[in-house]
């Protein structure tokens, strides 16, 4: 190796099926942290990190999960982009030892494409527990590429992987796997008509062309220029001849090749070992036991841990004991001593001061609630419970035009709707994404909001009932209507179920930490900006005008004019608004009916600024704008109706 080559930063790309441990390996190689979860399809974006491996600089690229080099979903396409356009110096194919047979099909494709492949047979620990044995030496011999056994979750095999990456020298004669004579004939004919230079081998491209891969077709058309016409003609003729079952034939031929390779390499015990986790998994997917289990999880996780402990005990302690009694008086005094101008004092420690209001809300009320929620969510995510929950609710979600898959963003929405809106990306069709976005922005209260509203209404059990009844009703009605109105086909549901496992403490902590970090960086500036805006509004008198302007709207839904303030807060963040209501209630300005109406309207009301921005980013201006308008109208409309209904029936009076 020349010195110049050593200077250049080389690239290593990690590819493989979803949920095989690519992200764990990425973290181990780079020291950076990508959210790792026991949930297929969580890395939607490509993560990059730089690292020094065995003394040389490397760029490590983590790709979303892909099942085959012939891509179907958006994530797979993103993953293949890396292989197509970045020509990585090493491609690491990570696969799950337990499913060696199924996943080797992609290794074959990577080798066939002439990529510099290293195979990492991961999750060896669990495979061993199941009594499987894999002869890695023999596998290496048969494949003609480096093969390493690993259990990246337990840091096994990492050194070998590092050595192998840095010392990678391409074998000049990687093995060729032969297909049937008929298919080989077709491949040869197509390859013979190709003239351009490609990153992937012609052989692989020929097969992709025959599979009618649009992206590859356009690349080849572009490269070949005039020579493309006869090539296209040939491909069309073959595709037509084999129209009955080309995909199937190819899969079967690959399966046959894999079977040959695996013969003598992979040994499974006669009898399947049934683990405790499998028994538990069984319980979680049967409605008879699964639904009670879900209720238990929700009761202890959401209600007891997040609601009672997070929003109650911890908030009481930090907000009341620390901020109101100790910190605020002290900081007010200090600021007033330092800054002589009253207006500036107001900015920091006034009624809407950055410190006394913004920071207090963010740290005292929102932080404990969100933190406990993320601990709960990360724990659950790592057990592998979510895919099971998804299949449990799939039938119900179908009525809303969604599949069980959408349960993940929905549950996450109870933590942070903004983050959940981002995760709707993992849904397959645009239609599902839009429906999920609507439901999230309308009916799912985020944890901060939930916590505040719970404590707000906890004194009136009836109010809590009315509030949750309204939200549930709207969730169903809007979901059903959206499924009816939005054009598009009913989605299909399929999902791989990862084995259930006990989460590792460190993993849950890091995951909660990264989520908290993201959340805090996102909300704190907004709270500060909100404080500044409110301060500006106050000193210019604009705020007063706005409150006046909103008074008729507030009056029409039966609320005192002071509550307008909470709604103006609510525009910045819904939880901020809810916290505003909390203040009003403490001052005794609202009765049970008004509180309920305000809570319902505010929960439905426009998502916080951050969520709106993400909606715009994910769905575009038009859709985001339409949803925003719809949500606002529906929120105040429902508030109006609810108020009338409560007045007429005399409920909660």
């Amino acid at each position, binding site marked *: 190796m020349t010195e110049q080559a050593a200077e250049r930063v080389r690239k290593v790309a990690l590819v493989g099926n979803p949920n095989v441990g690519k992200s764990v390996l990425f973290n181990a190689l780079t020291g950076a942290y990508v959210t790792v979860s026991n949930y297929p399809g969580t890395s939607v974006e490509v993560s990059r990190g730089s690292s020094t491996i065995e003394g040389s600089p490397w760029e490590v690229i983590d790709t979303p999960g892909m*099942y*085959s080099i*012939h891509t*179907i979903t958006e994530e797979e396409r993103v993953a293949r982009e890396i292989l197509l356009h970045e020509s990585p110096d090493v491609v690491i194919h990570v696969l*799950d030892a*337990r*499913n060696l*047979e*199924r996943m080797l099909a992609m290794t074959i494709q990577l080798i066939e494409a002439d990529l510099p492949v290293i195979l990492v047979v991961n999750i060896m620990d669990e495979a061993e527990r*199941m009594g*499987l044995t894999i002869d890695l030496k023999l596998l290496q011999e048969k494949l003609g590429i480096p093969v390493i056994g690993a259990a990246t979750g337990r840091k096994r095999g990492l050194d070998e992987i590092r050595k192998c990456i840095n010392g990678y020298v391409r074998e000049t004669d990687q093995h060729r796997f032969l297909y049937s004579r008929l298919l080989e004939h077709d491949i040869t004919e197509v390859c013979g008509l190709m003239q351009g230079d490609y990153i992937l081998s012609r052989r692989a491209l020929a097969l992709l062309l025959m599979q009618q891969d649009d992206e590859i077709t356009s690349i080849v058309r572009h490269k070949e220029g005039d020579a493309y016409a006869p090539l296209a003609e040939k491909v069309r003729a073959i595709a037509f001849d084999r129209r009955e079952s080309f*995909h*199937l034939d190819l*899969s*079967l031929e690959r*399966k046959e090749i894999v079977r040959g390779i695996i013969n003598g390499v992979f040994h499974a015990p006669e009898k399947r070992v049934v683990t405790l986790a499998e028994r538990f998994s*069984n319980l979680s*997917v*049967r*409605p008879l036991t699964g639904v009670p289990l879900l209720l238990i999880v929700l009761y202890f996780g959401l209600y007891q841990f997040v609601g009672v402990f997070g929003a109650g005990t911890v908030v009481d302690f930090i907000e009341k004991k620390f901020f109101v009694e100790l910190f605020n008086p002290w900081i007010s005094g200090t600021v007033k001593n330092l800054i002589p101008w009253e207006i500036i004092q107001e900015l920091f420690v006034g009624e809407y001061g950055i410190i006394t209001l913004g920071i207090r809300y963010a740290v005292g009320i929102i932080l404990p609630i969100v933190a406990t929620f993320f601990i709960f969510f990360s724990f659950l995510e790592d057990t592998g419970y979510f*895919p099971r929950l*998804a*299949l*449990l*609710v*799939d*039938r119900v979600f*179908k009525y809303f035009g969604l*599949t*069980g898959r959408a349960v993940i963003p929905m549950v996450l929405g109870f933590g942070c709707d903004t983050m959940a809106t981002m995760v709707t990306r993992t849904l397959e069709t645009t239609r599902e994404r839009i429906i999920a976005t609507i439901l999230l922005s309308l009916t799912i209260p985020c944890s901060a909001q939930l916590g505040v509203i719970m404590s707000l209404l906890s004194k009136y059990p009836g109010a809590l009932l009315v509030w949750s009844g309204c939200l549930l009703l709207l969730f169903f009605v809007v979901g059903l209507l959206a499924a009816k109105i939005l054009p598009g086909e*009913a989605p*299909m*549901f*399929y*999902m*791989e*179920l990862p084995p259930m496992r006990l989460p590792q403490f460190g993993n849950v902590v890091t995951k909660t930490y990264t989520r908290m970090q993201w959340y805090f960086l996102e909300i704190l500036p907004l709270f500060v900006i909100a404080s500044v805006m409110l301060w500006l509004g106050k000193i210019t008198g604009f705020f007063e005008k706005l409150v006046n302007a909103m008074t008729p709207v507030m009056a029409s839904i039966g609320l005192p004019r002071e509550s307008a303030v909470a709604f103006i807060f609510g525009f910045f963040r819904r939880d901020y608004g809810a916290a505003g209501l909390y203040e009003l209630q403490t001052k005794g300005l609202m009765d049970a009916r008004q509180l309920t109406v305000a809570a319902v309207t505010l929960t439905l009301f426009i998502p916080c600024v951050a969520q709106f921005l993400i909606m715009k980013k994910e769905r575009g201006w038009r859709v985001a704008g339409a949803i925003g308008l719809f949500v606002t109208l529906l929120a105040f409309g429902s508030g109006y109706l609810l108020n009338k209904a409560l007045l007429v029936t005399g409920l909660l009076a």
Partner: protein
Amino acid sequence: MKLTDHAEEILESMWIAIEEDGRGYADMVSIGISGDDPALKELVSNALVEIKGERLNFRPEGRREGEMTIRRHRLAERLMMDVLNIRGDSAEIKACQFEHLLNEGVDAKVCTMLNHPTTCPHGKRIPPGDCCHEARSSGDLGVVPLTELKSREEGEIAYIQTDDGKKMQKLMAMGVLPGNRIILLHSFPSYIFRVGFSEFAIDSAMAREIFVRR
């Protein structure tokens, strides 16, 4: 004995009136034939049908013949709908023409191909033929969709039948390949199956498209 098309149609009408509507006889006027119809003469001379005034009755061989004729008609309907994907009136007309070709063992072949269906597309019963009885007694349940398997039942994937190419590729990438062993673990609320060492959940729409040999 090869009957004319029209004679077969009379047998069908009679069979519906007598066996399905349970009237005990068929009325010439209500099934729309006249006493001097040559097809009716043909049936009488073959000792299939007897005439008592305005009423028609089956003789034992006639009942059997009527049953097989109705069977051929309904098999033809299924063939039009399920396999050739022809629907509506044109399916009915084509079925009427097609049924007359389904004799001399062709019906058994078609019936086996359709996996011995028991009802026609309109929900009426298809009388079982010898092939159906044989299949039943030999326990050869043939190839069935995954939805028909019981929990914990195992089989070999026979084929995937779907119009949606992407769905097919997705399934194949998940290891749902003809020849692989598949175990159905649960069928409610979603279908959960195991291939190799992985478990997957799919909805019933997808489960209907995976065909398994038991």
